């Protein structure tokens, strides 16, 4: 992040456009740190056996969405479609309501996790939108 900040300072000409994207990417990192808290909060790891499939689906779809976002920003590849990621979140949310809220001793932590997943999804879409503005020349 610090390196990116220095790059932005050097290239002041483009920094307004990229500053907006950078700000959102740093927000993305914060959300990922927030998601990571689940690791410390769940004390009984057996609970992950219940949601193994859904978790793996989230992992795959979020990785694809983030990679596509990277390609979109760097090489103007096709705009990202994070619909699969959203579906994976919905599946996890459904499971959470049906099972995890009953099976987990602290069901609230899964509510936090789901909310952070939605925030991650929204942030990916925001960055994508911001990048489209740059491509359309809105900042020039």
């Amino acid at each position, binding site marked *: 992040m610090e390196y990116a900040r220095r790059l932005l300072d050097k290239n002041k000409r483009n920094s307004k456009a990229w500053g907006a994207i950078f700000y959102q990417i740093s*927000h993305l990192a914060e959300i990922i*740190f927030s998601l990571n808290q689940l690791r410390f909060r769940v004390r009984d790891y057996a609970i992950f056996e219940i949601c193994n499939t859904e978790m793996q689906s989230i992992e795959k779809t979020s990785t694809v969405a983030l990679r596509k976002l990277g390609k979109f920003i760097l090489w103007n590849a096709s705009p990202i479609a994070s619909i699969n990621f959203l579906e994976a979140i919905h599946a996890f949310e459904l499971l959470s309501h049906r099972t995890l*809220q009953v099976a987990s001793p602290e069901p*609230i932590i899964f509510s936090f996790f789901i*909310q952070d997943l939605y925030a991650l999804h929204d942030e990916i879409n925001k960055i994508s939108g911001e990048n489209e503005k740059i491509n359309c020349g809105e900042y020039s």
Partner: protein
Amino acid sequence: MLFAVSIALLLNYYVVESMQGWLPFSTMMVMLTSTGSALYQGLQRFFIISGVVIVGSLIFPPFHLLYTRMYYVAIGAVVGILANIIILPDRVDYECRNAFVPILKSYAYYFPAIVDLLLKSNLIDAEREKIHTEKNLRKLPQWVYEVGFDSTLQMGYRYFFMKVGQMGEILFAMHHLARHSFSDQLLNVIREPLLQCIPRLEQFIFSLITVLELKKLREGIVDFEAELATMEEKFRVMGSPLWEGLEGEKDAVYLAEFIYDLRDLRSAMLRLTEALR
């Protein structure tokens, strides 16, 4: 390192009377180790150089030079490793302290900025403190995870490293939550106890720093458990079904998560205190 290489050059010139650079080269290479791993990594590098010398001598004859070269490499390695261990020993505790203290200080300033962002939407201060914290976090002593780091120290230092890193992650997570704009009604529920938490958390962190700096604590560590409990209680009284694990509004979920993060932060700090005993 300059000192040891100078010794190696003098040895090379006056004692072994060699015009080749194997001795100083070997000294220099075995001295390039990370903090706390001088012996292990020095020996590892010595074996790698020995391997290269053996293979090189097999490929490029004459083979009888192998013994001379190995002799120089071995002397160079001994000089380098001894210099690292005896003349310039690693001060692991000092290095760690120097790395951890600024990080903990930046946490102490980052937390009030996050609370300010949450209660007054003061984004600039929070961003500035975040940048400052990120800069300090880059100085985390990652060498405690190096293979060969002193086995008697590694468990404690790695635990401390992990907990300090976790505190940073929690603060970044809180920053994400504080960006959200909450209704005044919701914020008023936790405003007072949260503001009371700020000086207590700062005091807690500065007490940790005092102990880390090997100074005597003038007073006991002030905890913010009571303020945290008040915050949770007020949130419960408000009738939020969240704590029972039911569906809640986004605002309420975020604020509950913020309180939960604060509890996690306290827990990480308590673990640090225990580790320092």
